[in-house]
């Protein structure tokens, strides 16, 4: 399709309505990225294993004010709703039953990429930065590395670090937690 301008984009509300009326089937794995509905790749076993490795580390340390969310939707503005692998969100009394977390609720996003590194780096990073999500960690399985993005400014992360096995990292939102990169690379 030559021009991106000609495609009819959808808002988050329209996207939800499509699911409500059955245009999007209940089992469908889709996301809304910048107004476009895209299919989500099936999750490989290495990807799934990585997510599982993060969970106990984070859950142990989150304390009372923060919650760990696994593969649940996060709404970024009016044009994007993504299913993040792991998100650290502020505790809310209703646990987001009334509505998915918004960017201001999100303290950390972790995406594991096996076949989608380019997408997660080139499309999603700017989206998270534009939503001012304080920290975005991309687990790049093909490169066997962690890419930690911080300082979101004007649609881009100002500070990006590449970490490998042997390195350690402390999440911005949980400074007391030290994670060994080799612990979370499946």
């Amino acid at each position, binding site marked *: 399709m*030559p021009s991106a301008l*000609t*495609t*009819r984009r959808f808002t988050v509300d329209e996207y939800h309505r499509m699911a409500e*009326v059955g*245009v999007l089937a209940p089992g469908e794995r889709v996301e809304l*990225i910048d107004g*476009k509905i895209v299919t989500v790749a099936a999750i490989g076993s290495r990807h799934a294993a990585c997510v599982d490795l993060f969970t106990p580390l984070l859950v142990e340390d989150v304390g009372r004010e923060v919650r760990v969310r696994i593969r649940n939707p996060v709404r970024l503005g009016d044009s994007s709703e993504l299913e993040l692998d792991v998100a650290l969100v502020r505790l809310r009394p209703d646990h987001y039953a009334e509505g998915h977390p918004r960017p201001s609720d999100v303290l950390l996003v972790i995406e594991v990429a096996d076949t989608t590194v*380019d997408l997660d780096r080139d*499309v999603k990073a700017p989206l998270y930065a534009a939503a001012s999500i304080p920290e975005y960690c991309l687990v790049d399985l093909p490169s066997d590395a962690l890419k930690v993005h911080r300082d979101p400014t004007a649609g881009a992360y100002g500070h990006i670090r590449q970490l490998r096995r042997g390195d350690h990292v402390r999440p911005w939102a949980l400074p007391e937690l030290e994670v060994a990169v080799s612990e979370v690379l499946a």
Partner: protein
Amino acid sequence: MPALATTRRFTVDEYYRMAEVGILEPGERLELIEGEIVRMAAIGSKHAACVNRLNRHFARALGSRVLIVIQNPVRLSDRSEPEPDVTLVRPRPDDYSGSHPGPEDVLLLIEVAEATVDFDRDVKAPLYASAGIAEYWLVDIPAERVQIFTEPGEAGYGGSRAHGRDEMLRPAAFPDLEVSVDAILP
């Protein structure tokens, strides 16, 4: 973005359902092209005049031998339902109130392009060809010519010829008919 993520494509049924429930609004000028919902460009007066001239010319020349369809849907498949500028279709007693015309009903399909020449050539021509539309005319207003596409196939039209202002056009479906390019162009 589209190259990195797989777009969720829609069927004609899903497209209609979206319109039914109000996700797509009545005033929106849209087409479904290979499962993507695309906005149509606004119609400038030159474009409109072209359509008016084609309409008048064919109506006078062909009378009840055809039904002239102006900017109404033609259902090419379960993924594509464009609204071509001018489509000459076989007459049908119900005037297609039971269902939109399909490729087998189309005698000649014409698109007029003012700002959308690239799209009408690079996206629509292959689309019409793979649907088996026997003859497709692209009225290229900026270049002041009409491009005639013939020999439809899965990979696109096998034949293509441009005709300038001083030339006459003869539709294959109506060999007795002549249309002057100059009489069509604004």
